[in-house]
């Protein structure tokens, strides 16, 4: 019994961390229409940044500054922000598929760099040597994992509330207008390039925060954690849950992570032995099928975007019966 509960805590922690990343992607794609094909890079920048800043000194690569956990997390988010700002400035004029290709390329380049630059972050061996905060007080067992889950859920709720406020504000209105028609927005005096950059960096910081939590949860990050698969998983979560809807993004994260975990378990248990080697690939195909199927069957997602009528006092209007 404790085994099941313990596993559920583990599952929920990872799902909640991924949900934070999906919220970041929702700001990009759902609200602003920015096709970020390189989610893994910003997630990875956060994970690597946090571990390098907060970890213990390691031989052979940078980092090990042993910063306090919150400072390390903020550093990871800053790393994601810097990366997003650079990518954003360079690709500011790109839209849709071009931006997707450019950001995908950035993610592949980042992963390749991390895999090969051993002096930087351990190369293929990854970064270890992170002391999980408060471990002395809480030990390493179930209690620690439970409290870590609670902490992650608190962060998830905080990010959710932040984004809900943001997209309900005039800034959010501006994001939607740019998503819908950039030319029309410019004709109304708006400056889309600047606003898109702001949204791009903000979303990437949220992905970096998710990456930082992920890295510290495992106390380890390696190039295997930032493969393109991660980008596709996070996209599948957003599309299934409902782009433009933050609750949908969270729902999608739990559903897809559940399906991913279950399919991995089922394949390892029921697939013929000679196919065992390919379970990862089969799961990859399944993710693709889910994305395509969802786009064909219900492109707006399980929880579609709600029309924002106006941020303050929006309910009064409906009663007037104009």
């Amino acid at each position: 019994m404790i085994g099941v509960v313990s596993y559920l805590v583990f599952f929920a922690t990872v799902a909640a961390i991924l949900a934070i990343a999906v919220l970041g992607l929702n700001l990009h794609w759902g609200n602003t229409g920015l096709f970020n094909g390189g989610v893994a890079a910003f997630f990875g920048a956060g994970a690597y940044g946090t571990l390098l800043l907060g970890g213990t000194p390691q031989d052979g690569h940078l980092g090990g500054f042993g910063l306090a956990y919150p400072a390390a997390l903020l550093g990871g988010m800053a790393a994601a922000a810097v990366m997003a700002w650079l990518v954003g400035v360079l690709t500011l004029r790109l839209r849709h598929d071009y931006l997707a290709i450019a950001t995908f390329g950035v993610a592949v380049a980042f992963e390749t760099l991390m895999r090969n630059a051993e002096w930087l972050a351990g190369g293929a061996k990854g970064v270890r040597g992170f002391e999980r905060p408060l471990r002395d007080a809480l030990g390493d067992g179930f209690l620690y994992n439970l409290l870590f889950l609670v902490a992650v859920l608190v962060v998830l709720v905080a990010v959710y509330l932040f984004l809900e406020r943001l997209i309900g504000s005039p800034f959010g209105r501006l994001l939607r207008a740019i998503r819908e028609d950039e030319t029309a927005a410019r004709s109304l005096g708006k400056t889309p390039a600047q606003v898109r950059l702001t949204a791009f960096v903000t979303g990437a910081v949220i992905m970096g925060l998710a990456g930082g939590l992920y890295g510290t949860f495992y106390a380890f990050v390696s190039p295997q954690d930032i493969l393109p698969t991660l980008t596709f998983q996070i996209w599948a979560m957003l599309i299934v849950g409902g782009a433009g809807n933050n609750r949908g993004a969270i729902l999608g994260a739990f559903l897809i992570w559940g399906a991913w975990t279950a399919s991995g378990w089922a394949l390892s248990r029921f697939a013929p032995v000679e196919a065992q080697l390919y379970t990862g690939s089969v799961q990859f195909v399944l993710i693709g099928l889910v994305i395509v199927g969802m786009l064909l069957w219900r492109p707006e997602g399980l929880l579609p975007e709600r029309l924002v009528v106006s941020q303050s006092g929006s309910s009064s209007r409906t009663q007037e019966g104009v």
Partner: protein
Amino acid sequence: MPEPVLSTRGLSRRFGALNAVEDVSIDIGAGTMTGLIGPNGAGKSTVFNLLTGALKPSTGTVLLNGRDVTGLAPDRLFALGLARTFQIPRPFARMSVLENVMLAPPHQTGERLGGRFLAWGRVRAEEARLRARALEVLDFMTLGPLADHPAGKISGGQRKLLELARVLMGDPAVILLDEPAAGVHPALTETLIGKIETLNRQGKTFVIIEHDMDVVMGHCAPLIALAEGRVIFHGTPAEARANTALLDAYLGVPVDV
């Protein structure tokens, strides 16, 4: 001739070998409802795009209230009081009609990322004010009942009304309308033209590209005609009617209007 509010001097635009607009020098008088007419391909829309900053001229200048605004981007021009609508309306489809209109006013505190959090009270007050004004403008444009509808779901004519409502929120002095009557139900055209005339009487200057001759002859003065990128006529509708050369150029054959 009233004081010119918008002028061009020697405005030209080439696309490769094509001279889409050639040496156009016009003055749009303040408070007028100037009709810009001409056959398809005459360069009307190019002139519009040059005036509104969507295109940069090859040569020549654009003056707004005597200030050189040549080559300024559309967002800058909107802030200076020059607004436009599109031939094919461009509503923000997956936003409510009200949101479309509330978006338009410039320099909103809450448009900055931190505005919502750092100046919460001010944003709230601004939003309440904008909302009231937006509903007023929507009611004026007869779109009040549609305020909560997605803008992508309203009719073509209503979209034209919406575009005009949107630009009105920026309180521009000059509004350029690209074929406001095209593809609009005649009853709605009446409404739209009526609203434009009301605004015109309140002092707003309009420049209107229009193919519907009833609209042009009945409501616009003066008229400026373009053909093959050049100005071929500038005068009153009565003069235009008497100008057979213009009508020949415009329609290819003499007609009775």
